[in-house]
């Protein structure tokens, strides 16, 4: 089976800064890859590249069969991204934000309710403007969006950030469920312990390149 993600010498720029300076990476379909690294290593940029939101300056990349040089638009409907910033419109409630997103991808808006319940944002929390939610609750809203959307590729930027212990356990459970369902997950983290709990493979980014990689049983040695 072809890997879900293949990057070779991938260079991507933020403005004129080479955030990724030649990344070589393979991610097997249905697996969970954790990307570690210090601040400024290029972890978020890597996720944006894999989402098709950023172009390649040089090198090659294929994600879910789509060429990053020419097929980024075709890739995007298959991708779900949980970023640092709130996912949608702060004036709308979590339920309204998810319903908007589901209608946009031609799915029944009613699926938003179940997704929000799954992440613990039921009742009043689902109906207040999302700007009123705490950072952790907004994270959960982002996770609910991925649960509702069920993309083939999950891209999670420090998913545990801002979550309490229950939230982190929920996040791990959702990642495992997604992988069991056939989705590929790439998540970034500052926490090697947290990453190795769920990851099948771990890479460490530094200076915009992959500095080290661990796969399978060796993953547990990262911590």
């Amino acid at each position: 089976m072809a890997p879900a993600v293949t990057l070779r010498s991938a260079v991507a720029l933020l403005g004129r800064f080479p955030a990724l300076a030649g990344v070589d990476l393979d991610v097997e379909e249905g697996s969970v890859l954790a990307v570690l690294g210090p601040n400024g290593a290029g972890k978020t940029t890597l996720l944006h590249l894999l989402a098709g939101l950023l172009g390649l300056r040089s090198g090659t990349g294929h994600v879910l069969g789509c060429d990053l040089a020419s097929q980024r638009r075709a890739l995007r409907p298959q991708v779900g991204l949980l970023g640092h910033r709130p996912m949608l419109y702060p004036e709308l409630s979590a339920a309204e934000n998810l319903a908007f997103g589901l209608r946009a991808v031609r799915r029944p808006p009613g699926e938003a309710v179940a997704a929000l319940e799954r992440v613990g944002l039921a009742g009043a929390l689902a109906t207040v403007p999302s700007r009123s939610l705490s950072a952790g609750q907004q994270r959960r809203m982002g996770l609910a969006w991925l649960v509702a959307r069920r993309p083939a590729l999950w891209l999670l930027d420090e998913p545990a950030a801002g979550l309490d212990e229950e939230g982190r356990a929920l996040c791990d459970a959702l990642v495992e469920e997604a992988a069991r369902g056939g989705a590929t997950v790439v998540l970034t983290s500052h926490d090697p312990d947290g990453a190795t709990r769920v990851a099948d493979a771990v890479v460490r980014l530094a200076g915009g390149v992959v500095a080290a990689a661990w796969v399978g049983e060796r993953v547990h040695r990262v911590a």
Partner: protein
Amino acid sequence: MWRDAALVCGKDLRIELRSRVLVWQVVPFGILALILFALALGPSLDALRHGAPGILWLALLLASVLASSRSAAIEATEGTRATVRLLGLDAAGVFLGKVLALAVQLLVLTGILELGLLVLFHVDGGRLALATPLSCFAVVALAAVGTLYGALVAGTDVATTLLPLLVLPALAPVLIAGERGTASVLAGGGPGRWAIVLAVMAVAYLAVGVVLYGPLEDPS
């Protein structure tokens, strides 16, 4: 395209109903503009009546820049931009949806400014009502230009200063046609010729926006 347009229009109008930026910021600014222009013209009733059409359209233009800026700012936060791009909405549909939502708000604004004109500038209300076709076509043109230029500057650090510089010269033809048409109506003529000019502008800007919004928002 139309389905996405309806979705985006509904979303923008819902956000406006919640935030009420039009009610609490844009409309008051428009009325403030009317008052300041009246002060600048002086107390002569003749001068005010003569200048009323120009002042109406100038106030509408300036307030529409605010409204366009707000419409673009809704989409401009980093998380929102990323998530919306991943939704795969039709770019032309997004453009038309935002234009429609903005046009509805500008129509409300125009109605309130025309009321202001009645009260502050003593124009003939019955004659002013005949200028309605002008307003309808003009707000579509204003909304189309505002949406397109708003997307142009969204995400830059200088959006608030750059947008007026870019959009106001492009809206000058709307200002001219709107003022001439309103002046003609208030003088006893009809809006016919100028309404057609504004309709042509509206259609042209919509067509250009449908073509150019996609490459602007999403280069891939």
